[in-house]
């Protein structure tokens, strides 16, 4: 599979739970948990490269998840790296890599914009 270079202007998609639990708070802001890696690998966060993805596939289940997008320049400004890492089932799969502190997760969450996905 071809590996693409992610430009700073490219957008990355992150799937966020909205239905028990919801990572959106009462005031509509996004919890920092949305950009916190799992314990499987604390230095990597899975995302989809928007230009290779379809919203329908990325969202998985619109009743359970919402899609948020963030420009690749944002994590890079926080000393994180964005790399295209396709997997067999998802060519758009990419990773944000680096040290994820609570502050960094908060900044990423506040920078992300919810996408209105019509399916």
């Amino acid at each position: 599979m071809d590996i693409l270079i992610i430009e700073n202007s490219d957008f990355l998609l992150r799937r966020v739970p909205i239905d028990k639990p919801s990572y959106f708070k009462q005031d509509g802001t996004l919890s920092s948990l949305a950009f916190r890696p799992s314990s499987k690998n604390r230095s990597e966060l899975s995302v989809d490269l928007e230009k290779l993805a379809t919203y329908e596939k990325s969202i998985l289940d619109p009743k359970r998840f919402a899609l948020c997008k963030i420009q690749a320049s944002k994590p890079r400004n926080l000393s994180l790296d964005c790399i295209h890492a396709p997997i067999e089932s998802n060519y758009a799969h990419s990773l944000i890599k680096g040290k994820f502190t609570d502050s960094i997760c908060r900044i990423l969450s506040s920078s992300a914009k919810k996408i209105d996905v019509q399916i």
Partner: protein
Amino acid sequence: MISLFPSTEVNYNIDSTNSISEYYHSFEELSSYFNSTYMQELLKNNLHINDILYYSELPKNWDSYDADKVSLLSFNNSVKYIRKLTSLGIPVYFSAPTPEGNILIELRNKHKSIEIEFFSNGKTIYSAYENDYLFESNILNLEDENFILTSWLNN
């Protein structure tokens, strides 16, 4: 003990009109108290407890990104602490499971917030923010009766 239905009170003295107005006034006050925003916020703490019970039943990978199941210790400690907060009159603003299987709750007052995370190893850490800047972060002793941070939150 205030009766909510004075007209059905067997021992109610109907000759005492002062008692009627006192009773009605008290009922109005009681009703107003329970309907107040503050009380509604406290009652929501029970909803957070119910939610956390639900979260504890979520399967692994509930977030589609390999999230762990919520640990029993995180569940127990968070529920116990929310009950303590309720007894102190402190409403919980937000609660959620974390990808690592912990429980996170947030207390909030205007531009200040406190996030409290209950870890699967029994440790609890709080982070206090003011205008989104980290003010303080430290280990929280769940047995500590002096929850000084709530004073900071309300000032």
